[in-house]
């Protein structure tokens, strides 16, 4: 087992090391910069001369685009480990009895999957997009604090080492094993596990919180103070609006989690009573954790909604319908998100009157969420829809949100919640959100901005294959989870052969688990296609020579980031005399069409 995990890590690192070499090819043109924290102005047009080569460039960079790429690489590594850990679990669950991993290893993987996907993939991958593109979208020279931007990133790799430490030490056979607390780290379980791997994980989590908080402060300062002369609050793009709101949530959510983690560490190591029965009690941990935890959901999903609100109109040929209301709904969700946390605790024996009020606020979140959904649908209405890979992911995002969101409305209702709580229904619900929405929007944005970041085009056949496999896989896997939840299958179980057949019929449950595993394999195949596509296209994809690869000018939807890209192409054009640069922008291999992916209209 340990060897398998180790091999996966080595493979991931080896892959990244190979990608590393291509970074040097990224288009780069300097801009004059004056920054507030010691980031320095330098003359425009000096080009790569200012950047050292090799690893030094990446260790010393304060360029928001470089840091965005670093965040992206980090997020992808985390995503791969998160995916591998869940595949190991899914194969174990293929049969009801214990087969090839121990229940302890199952718990460890379950914990690592959740923590990795939320803290090491979710937040950083959003930071990748926002670092690279928010300054371009608001016409800023860079972030308000380029050096703080760099330090915020560099705190993350040590954080990951601490969080994963328990897995690294398996081959050493010392008394550190991976934490088995689940990502919610509920007390007293998390206090009583004497394994120091838990302490290391808590320390690592605290470090990611410091990093996220520094990033959030930087984004708010950037959007407030670094906007270009013609970027006002009235015409600020939707993605920056969501990043602004998200940063506001981080400002209160992550420091509170940080304090709670320190309190947990003190309870574990210095016999304090923060979460002990004679002190605050286990319920205090739940309150503090979910006061962070529920806003965390919106910290992850709001920017992704912003990406979809930004990309979807480009391929619908229409402006985002009801822009103002999409902004208002973003702000409304941001405010409401701090008032719903106790819906995670309906089963904890709290006062029914408090339960009722949290049910009301939780249901109320459906309103701004529906405002967004209907605005996306209305944007498509009578639009000139072009089903490019980014557009497919946006539409898949909206479709999955309908299922993921409405199952959430059911869970917000106290009587339904009490029955479905701690079942696979909950797992299915939030995976529709985190995989069906957050990852989908991420994939869509990667395809949409691939030309800007790499200067090349992805292979669109692979990209569409990736979409359909992901869409089908997600709906098979997570719909089966919803059904298993209706059958009463509880969450977090490594085996299910000993269940009372009255409560959970074994035949049906086993069948549904096999369906889930099959669906997960489909998702994994799609993800491998995506990886191959990105890796291959980054190196060999057709060079993008058209500054408007998505033909957005035609619809009056040209974004500032592509206007910037046009300047980049104009600035570097002189040097590009390779024959490769004549290749069309749709992935090169596609002989059938000279148009870009965006150019082939299918509506």
């Amino acid at each position: 087992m340990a060897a398998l995990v180790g091999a996966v890590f080595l493979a991931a690192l080896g892959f990244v090391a190979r990608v590393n070499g291509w970074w040097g090819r990224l288009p780069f043109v300097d801009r004059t910069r004056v920054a507030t924290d010691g980031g320095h102005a330098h003359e425009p047009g000096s080009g790569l001369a200012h950047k050292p080569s090799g690893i030094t460039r990446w260790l010393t960079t304060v360029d928001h685009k470089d840091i965005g790429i670093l965040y992206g690489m980090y997020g992808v590594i985390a995503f791969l480990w998160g995916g591998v850990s869940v595949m190991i679990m899914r194969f174990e669950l293929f049969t009801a009895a214990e087969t090839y991993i121990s229940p302890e290893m199952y718990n460890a993987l379950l914990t690592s999957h959740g923590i990795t996907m939320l803290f090491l993939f979710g937040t950083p991958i959003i930071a990748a997009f926002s670092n690279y593109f928010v300054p371009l979208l608001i016409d800023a020279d860079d972030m308000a604090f380029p050096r703080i931007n760099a330090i915020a990133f560099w705190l993350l790799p040590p954080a990951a080492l601490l969080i994963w430490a328990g897995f690294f030490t398996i081959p050493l056979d010392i008394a550190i094993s991976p934490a088995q607390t689940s990502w919610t780290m509920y007390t007293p379980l998390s206090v009583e596990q004497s394994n120091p791997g838990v302490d290391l994980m808590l320390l690592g989590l605290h470090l990611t919180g410091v990093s996220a908080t520094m990033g959030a402060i930087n984004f708010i300062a950037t959007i407030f103070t670094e906007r270009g002369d013609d970027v006002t609050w009235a015409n600020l793009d939707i993605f920056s609006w969501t990043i602004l709101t998200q940063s506001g949530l981080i400002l209160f959510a992550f420091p509170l989690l940080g304090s709670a983690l320190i309190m947990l560490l003190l309870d574990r190591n210095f016999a304090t009573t923060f979460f002990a029965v004679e002190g605050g009690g286990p319920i205090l941990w739940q309150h503090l954790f979910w006061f962070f935890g529920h806003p965390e959901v919106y910290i992850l999903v709001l920017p992704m909604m912003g990406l979809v609100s930004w990309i979807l109109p480009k391929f619908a040929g229409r402006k985002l319908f009801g822009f103002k209301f999409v902004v208002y709904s973003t702000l409304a969700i941001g405010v409401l998100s701090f008032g719903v946390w106790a819906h995670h605790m309906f089963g904890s024996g709290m006062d029914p009157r408090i339960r009722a009020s949290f049910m009301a606020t939780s249901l109320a979140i459906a309103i701004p969420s529906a405002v967004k959904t209907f605005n996306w649908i209305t944007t498509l209405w009578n639009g000139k829809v072009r089903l490019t890979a980014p557009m497919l992911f946006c539409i898949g995002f909206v479709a999955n949100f309908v299922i993921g969101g409405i199952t959430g409305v059911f869970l917000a209702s106290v009587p339904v919640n009490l029955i479905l709580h701690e079942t696979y229904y909950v797992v299915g619900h939030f995976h529709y959100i985190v995989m069906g929405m957050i990852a989908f929007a991420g994939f869509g944005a990667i395809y949409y901005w691939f030309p800007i970041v790499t200067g090349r085009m992805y292979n669109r056949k692979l990209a569409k294959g990736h979409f359909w496999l992901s869409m089908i896989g997600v709906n098979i896997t997570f719909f089966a989870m919803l059904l298993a939840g209706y059958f009463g299958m509880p969450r977090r179980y490594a085996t299910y052969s000993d269940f009372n057949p009255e409560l959970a019929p074994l035949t049906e449950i086993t069948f549904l688990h096999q369906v889930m595993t099959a669906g997960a394999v489909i998702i994994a195949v799609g993800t491998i296609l995506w990886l191959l596509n990105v890796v291959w296209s980054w190196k060999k994809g057709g060079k993008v020579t058209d500054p408007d690869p998505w033909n957005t000018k035609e619809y009056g939807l040209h974004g500032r980031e592509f206007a910037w890209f046009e300047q980049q192409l104009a600035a570097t054009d002189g040097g590009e005399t390779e024959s490769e640069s004549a290749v069309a922008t749709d992935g090169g291999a596609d002989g059938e069409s000279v148009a870009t992916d965006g150019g082939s209209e299918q509506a």
Partner: protein
Amino acid sequence: MSIETDDGRGHGHDSEHHLPAVEDWPKGFGEASWWPFISALGGSGFYIGAALYVLGQGQSPIVSPVAGGAVFVLSTFVFLTGLYGWLYHAFIVDFWEGEAADFGFPLKLTMLLFLATEVATFGAGFIYYFFIRAGSWSDLPPIVADGEVLSTLVIANTLVLIASSVTIHYAHHALLNGDRTRFVRLLGATLGLGLVFLAGQVYEYYEFIVHLGFSLTDGAYGTAFYGLTGLHGLHVSLGAVLLSILFIRALYGHYSAEKHVSVSTVSMYWHFVDIVWVFLVVVLYVGAIV
């Protein structure tokens, strides 16, 4: 997070282009810099040190019990070197050549945002206290039962901290009015009062732990008391460091009516820490015995 509170100064953006990074050491590249990486190394070293400390505890320690402390001390050195290089090369080395601060608004906004995060940081601790205060509130240490927790020392200390808020306010005003002597004196007074407060806290801890036998592990109230006053004490210590930087720079002749951003931001921080203390005394000391 203190780093961005320092003085913003305009780098020349005209023909007299000045690039401090070129003189930077280790050598930066254009706008690139080693300092964030070095600071991050030191910063995460604190966490590695804490992790090693945990591994060095217990019956059969996994690493040497001194490893954690050693890494922690080393990291402090690396971290401070990183911050010093960063601040020195970015702001201080050519303070005199800089223009009046262009960055007053972003830096003050940033301090405000940082203080918002501090509300959440302190919030978790206060929520714990409210939980136990509104909960069973039993098994109280004698110090609470006797009312000894609210001593004259605490009241005097509170007055000292409030006085330091007043002095820093008037120090800033003196600077804005061009009265440098008064500015430096009042700034020194603020720093002195802050140090007196910290000494008072240390003395209180000594009295409680050694003479009254009231410590961190002394029930639910002990946890709240040392958790909250300890967190606040750390913040006052950071404030004292910031005030020292201001004071030393002021002695070297830095700051004027035009260039005073870091005085503003440190002042905001100091007032915040002061307000938290007043709230803390009201709920944690007075609130425990009424």
